[in-house]
């Protein structure tokens, strides 16, 4: 009762307190529901979101796979390179520090600032690369000043160790992936993700076997705070231990024999063009040289605009791989196709002779033999040995172009060899149909005359020529050339192996081929042969010279006087040993000015000798003791006209074979 009396004095309605309590509990339950939803139902999702906040994945570059030659001798490896980096998180007294760095390493301050501003979006602990590939001196300088330069450091990364400066086209250079490459590369690779700035092979085997060589990037998981600063994970190591170390790419064994490769590089020094050596029985490439070379390390260090300009404007096109990408008129090397075609198609026989008086006439046209005075009466074998143009004009005329083309194709000319390296081109095997389609003009009988000696519309790559030459030696087997012996992972397991592939087999009568082969052997072995400078004592070698005209020149003009881009290409292609060919070699010296016999044959000789010494050392031991005279002759002078023993007779007489300028003029 007393209570009610008091209550009546109170202005509030006590029942509302119970309403308030009920409302309070309802609201509390709704908050609990929300809490349940966030923590229990969606807890997993939010945990992932939380991890994503604090864990940053950092990739560590993988060393690329090593490259060995066929015998396991190291051709290309890696070493650590040092980069100058700035880590914004640790940078103190930014302005002054950057100024000192700028002066110490002679980098413009604006360039450093630009670099830093470019990476403004990335977390502060990520080092920003200021200068690549420091010299050891610069590294030492950095180390000794480290104390005064907080936030500046030296970062190491494994990169290619380009100790040798040759064979740039074979190995290929590396570069940052372009946006266009990014899409295609990522579409084809499952376990590897390319990003902007990733390194990728751009040429040669580095490009072709990119997926095997690249390795697996390492991954580090670092903890950062909301400002992107790296946190030590000591007190709070929540299982950041999923890190993966970088794995080196698979190692690669090439079919290249480094001894032969080095010999080819050495022999081809100061020349432009290509040298290829191939196993004549299976297509393994033993040496692969394209000149002019370019510097691979220049690419790795970062090509300056100036360097790029130089590479682009160099008239000898250093970036072009001439082995697969250079299409040249084959010149007289092509005569072996014409010769075999003539025998097979019955327009010539081994006994049938033609008389060469130095000129061939057809209609109003006149075609000269390279030897003004003519070769007199020659049969097929002799015409090959002497590279008599008139003989081949005659049989070419009888053959017609389409039958020549048929035989050229039978030996793989006019199509890609299948090496699939560095933008291979098909070249041109001309035919009536081809001319109609591309030039819109009917074939002229005069065209055939040019084609029969490898001029005119003919274009072949050195790789096609070497495959053809091997097929002439091995009985018509046209192999696909290849470079890869095997790819081996880090456990030594073979991941990929290339096997010989017989692309096609030319069908001909054995006796016809024998005649051509005899002629090819005479080229090298006969004292009057045009290619005798490729001889290696103790071995039977067969080959063919070629001196391909690049422009219509007055016969009187000296090659030294004309513009270099109008000079002749010097060819020589050979196989050895004749009785059972093991190796085929081609050398093409473009815009050489000299003939194939004087300029290209000695190169082939050195490559052959390097190979034969290795393959048949016993023959060299005996030759050393008994045939001193011969031996003095073999390490050949490879400078033009400097020959001391074969001396005065050399340049003009041997192989001045040139299709005469008048012919072309008459045609047009």
């Amino acid at each position, binding site marked *: 009762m007393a209570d009610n009396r008091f209550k009546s004095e109170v202005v509030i309605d006590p029942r509302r307190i119970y309403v*308030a309590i009920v409302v309070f509990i309802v609201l509390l339950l709704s908050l*609990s529901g929300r809490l349940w939803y966030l*923590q229990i139902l969606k*807890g997993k999702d*939010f945990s992932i979101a939380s991890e994503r906040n604090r864990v940053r994945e950092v990739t560590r570059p993988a060393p690329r796979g090593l490259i060995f030659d066929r015998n396991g001798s190291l051709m290309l490896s890696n070493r650590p390179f040092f980069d100058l980096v700035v880590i914004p998180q640790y940078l103190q007294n930014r302005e002054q520090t950057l100024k000192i760095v700028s002066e110490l390493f002679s980098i413009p301050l604006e360039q450093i600032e630009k670099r830093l501003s470019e990476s403004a979006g990335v977390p502060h602990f990520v080092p920003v690369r200021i200068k690549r590939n420091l010299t050891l001196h610069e590294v030492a300088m950095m180390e000794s000043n480290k104390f005064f330069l907080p936030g500046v450091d030296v970062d190491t990364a494994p990169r290619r160790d380009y100790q040798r400066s040759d064979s740039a086209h074979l190995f290929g250079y590396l570069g940052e992936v372009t946006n266009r490459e990014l899409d295609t590369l990522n579409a084809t690779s499952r376990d590897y993700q390319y990003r902007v700035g990733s390194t990728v092979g751009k040429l040669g085997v580095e490009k072709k076997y990119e997926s095997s060589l690249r390795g697996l990037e390492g991954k580090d998981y670092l903890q950062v705070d909301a400002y992107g600063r790296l946190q030590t994970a000591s007190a709070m190591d929540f299982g950041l231990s999923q890190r993966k170390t970088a794995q080196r790419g698979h190692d690669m064994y090439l079919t290249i024999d480094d001894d032969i490769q080095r010999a080819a590089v050495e022999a081809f020094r100061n020349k432009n063009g290509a040298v290829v050596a191939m196993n004549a029985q299976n297509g393994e490439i033993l040496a692969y040289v394209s000149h002019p070379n370019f510097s691979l390390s220049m690419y790795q260090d970062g090509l300056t605009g100036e360097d790029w300009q130089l590479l682009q404007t160099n008239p000898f096109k250093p970036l072009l791989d001439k082995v697969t990408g250079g299409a040249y008129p084959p010149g007289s090397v092509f005569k072996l196709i014409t010769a075999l075609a003539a025998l097979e198609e019955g327009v010539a026989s081994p006994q049938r002779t033609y008389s060469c008086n130095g000129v061939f006439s057809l209609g109003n046209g006149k075609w000269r033999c390279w030897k003004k005075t003519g070769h007199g009466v020659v049969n097929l074998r002799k015409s090959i040995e002497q590279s008599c143009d008139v003989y081949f004009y005659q049989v070419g005329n009888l053959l017609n172009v389409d039958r020549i083309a048929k035989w050229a194709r039978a030996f793989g000319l006019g199509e890609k060899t299948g090496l699939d390296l560095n933008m291979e081109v098909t070249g041109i095997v001309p035919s009536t149909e081809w001319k109609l389609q591309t030039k819109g003009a009917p074939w002229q009988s005069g065209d055939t005359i040019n084609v029969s000696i490898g001029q005119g519309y003919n274009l072949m790559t050195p790789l096609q020529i070497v495959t053809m030459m091997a097929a002439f030696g091995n009985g018509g087997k046209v192999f696909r050339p290849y470079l890869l012996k095997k790819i081996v992972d880090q456990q030594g397991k073979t991941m990929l192996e290339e096997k010989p592939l017989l692309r096609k087999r030319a069908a001909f009568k054995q006796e016809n081929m024998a005649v051509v082969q005899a002629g090819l052997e005479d080229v090298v072995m006969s004292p009057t042969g045009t290619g005798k400078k490729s001889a290696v004592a103790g071995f039977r070698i067969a080959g063919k010279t070629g001196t391909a005209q690049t422009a219509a020149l007055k016969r009187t003009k000296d090659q030294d006087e004309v513009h270099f881009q109008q000079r002749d290409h010097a060819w020589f292609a050979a196989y050895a040993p004749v009785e059972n060919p093991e190796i085929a070699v081609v050398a093409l010296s473009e815009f050489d000015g000299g003939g194939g016999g004087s300029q290209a044959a000695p190169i082939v000789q050195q490559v052959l000798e390097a190979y034969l010494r290795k393959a048949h050392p016993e023959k060299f031991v005996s030759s050393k003791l008994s045939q001193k005279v011969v031996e003095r002759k073999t390490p050949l002078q490879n400078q033009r006209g400097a020959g001391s023993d074969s001396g005065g007779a050399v340049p003009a007489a041997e192989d001045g074979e040139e299709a005469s300028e008048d012919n072309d003029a008459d045609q047009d």
Partner: protein
Amino acid sequence: MLLFWQLLKERFRGTPWSLLITVYLLVALGLFNMFSASGADASPGRFNDQLQWAVIGTFAMIFWGIILDLRSIERLTLLSYIVVCALLLAVDISGQIAKGSQRWLMIGPIRVQPSELAKFVIILIVARSFGFVRGVHEFTLLTLWRQIIVVLIPFVLVLVQPDLGTSGLVLLIACFQIAFVRINWTSIAIVAFTSLSASIIAWNFVLYDYQKLRVLNFLNPMRDPKGAGYHSIQSMIAVGSGGLWGRGFQQGTQSQLSFLPERHTDFAFSVWAEEQGFIGCAVVFGLYLLMLLQIFQIAEKARDSFSALVALGVAGFFLFHFFINVAMVLGMFPVVGVPLSLVSYGGSHMLTVMSCIGLLIAVERRRALSST
């Protein structure tokens, strides 16, 4: 000596000890959380500060609850109201001079946040304004003119600071108190109708699009995850990743690595939820439920209007802070600067909260005194 002891015992008679246990459990929990949240900072400065403020708050509580009695508090109400309003005005003026929002005022060496004191003083002034009333009464808008004026003055003064959160709380606490008084239904209908139609008119005819956008972003932070919504999202991530048992003391990455903004103050509960999980949150909810029930009980038992309204004001104070803060932390409410009482860092707020507890002690002591 015995006499002194007797006097002291007399002084403390009626003290609601069970309420104080609940309060200090929450204080301890808040300090523990503060220590954890400061873990990554290496310097436990905030923990020490908060501990200091808890002690100072305890003195404030003793001052209001034990040293003064409710009668003197009732007498002091108008004076303290005027003082607080003057301080609020001073803040507004100094804010005008500094050309920016201003919430602090330096009084000697200490920074005071008068808007916090406003929440305290509004409880007293509203209770006081009904103090004259005896018996059953039905109020209308006209008879409530006193209350409307005393509430509007501090409300406007805080609003122009600008501090939307606190001014809203001032209004809410006052309304909560008045809601327990019998009010004529027509008056309620008038207020409801005018405020509703005013907001509809404002939305359709007054506000520009960008202002509407701002309102929408305020009401639903998820509309703008990088701007206004960032805090909400980070807080939800922190809470959600806590799971059932939490990530453990000083193990919350969201808070320790500063992804969580304001982890000591407005988002302190977020830290707790991340590190102590659903179970830990249930403990906080339980303590708050217990505390509110105890306060409502005090209000229910009160024998005069002033006592009852003071207790209800304090209940409203805790209730609104709790709901707004927790709803904000859970991403159900826009981010406004409302701390979780007893748990969040903040000296002025701790002082205010403990003073409110002091008021409850005073209320209980008066009842104990009058029942004998």
